[in-house]
């Protein structure tokens, strides 16, 4: 089996690495880069816990080959903070009480960020559609919707 050489941006930093072809993007993020914020919940793209942004759009990293990240821009939950400050979504999740056990939250935040990248001022319906691929077993979702709504109304840093 061939090893593959990759070059991609991860949370704004240019990265190069060589990996076997059969590893997933999730595996590379967690095991090679030690970014443990991105979680695995099902291993088949059905829970959303492993969601990261690829070129600004949410994707489930457990069903993407690492190879596919080559020459792309990947962002994980660790990339959301800037200068030691929470971004507006993270802050809104705290303020609105959108966090309980927290396991789905990194993926949820990335789906929300992906939505705001494409649609900075989504309606409640659009927010709901935007996180339909992220299962949360704790919250009942409505506080998460409120948090995303709130973040979308805060101008300023993204």
């Amino acid at each position, binding site marked *: 089996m061939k090893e593959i050489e990759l070059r991609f941006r991860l949370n704004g930093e240019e990265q190069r690495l060589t990996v076997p*072809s*059969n590893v997933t993007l999730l595996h590379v993020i967690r095991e090679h880069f030690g970014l443990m914020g991105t979680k695995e919940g099902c291993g088949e*793209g059905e829970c959303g816990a492993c969601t990261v942004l690829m070129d600004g759009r949410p994707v489930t990293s457990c069903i993407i*080959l690492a190879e596919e990240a080559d020459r792309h821009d990947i962002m994980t939950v660790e990339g959301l903070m800037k200068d030691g400050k929470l971004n507006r979504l993270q802050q809104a999740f705290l303020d609105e009480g959108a966090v309980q056990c927290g396991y789905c939250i990194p993926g949820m935040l990335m789906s929300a960020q992906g939505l705001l990248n494409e649609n900075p001022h989504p309606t409640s319906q659009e927010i709901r559609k935007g996180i339909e691929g*992220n299962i949360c077993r704790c919250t009942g979702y409505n506080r998460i919707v409120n948090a995303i709504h709130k973040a979308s109304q805060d101008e300023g840093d993204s």
Partner: protein
Amino acid sequence: MLPQFELYLPKSVEETSEILLTYNSNARIYAGGTDVLVQMAKGQSKPEALVDIKGLAELRGISYSAAKELSIGALTTHHELENSDLIKKKYAALHDGVSRVGSVQTRNRGTIGGNLCSALPSADSAAPLLALGAKVIINGSGGERELPLEKFYLGIKHTALEPGEILTKIVIPALARHNAQAYIKFSRRNAMDLALMGVAICYELDGLHVSKARIALTTAAPTPVRAYGAEAFLTGKALTEANLKEAGVLAAEEAKPRDSWRSGAEYRRGLIKVLLPRISRLALERMGKARSENERD
């Protein structure tokens, strides 16, 4: 953990075809990966090679020819289609279908070509494309050929692709100016679920009468299928409640849904009876709205 495989990143259709032929049937095309990787992770599929065709630029994009034929590259993602104004306005049935595939994340990766080539009875883009009269363009060492989508499906997970061939394009022929179209997906869960039943319709209208009807169903047979009997019944008729109801009954009769633990065949048949008139009414409403908007413009 995924099993081991060789990975290829071809740059042309010819190269792709060659690799596929080398591996006989032991290589799989890899596009969005949303089906292939899941099957591999579960041990249901153990290809010796994956052929990632995302480098084939000619398989991308949506274009509209002078003859008003719509051409969709096989690598076009569901998300691209969902976000296309053209699809939203002129091909509402397809828009309905692609926006109900999986989740946002799946739609960002999954391609329309992949959705068709996986050849699952529940493919949400397939029924709308059947209703829109789509053809598929297939390319391989033997050159290019064209098939009506109906002929592309041979069985569950089984397509008409010959060794070395890939699906490159989907073409939707011009539709009559007045057409009513929509797709409805009925699932137990309201998101991230497989269709228990899907009904797509496209009625081309001549005044009040149907000049051409195409009705297609997902999860109603081993492959997505047309409901020819119901189509024939509606052709030349007005879309009255009574006619739609009868069409629903006919479509339900000709469908061959499976009895499975996901749902009983009789229940699925019942859904067709209910959903066909329902989705037809929605399509007509849509068409009415579009017309009045056009008049305002």
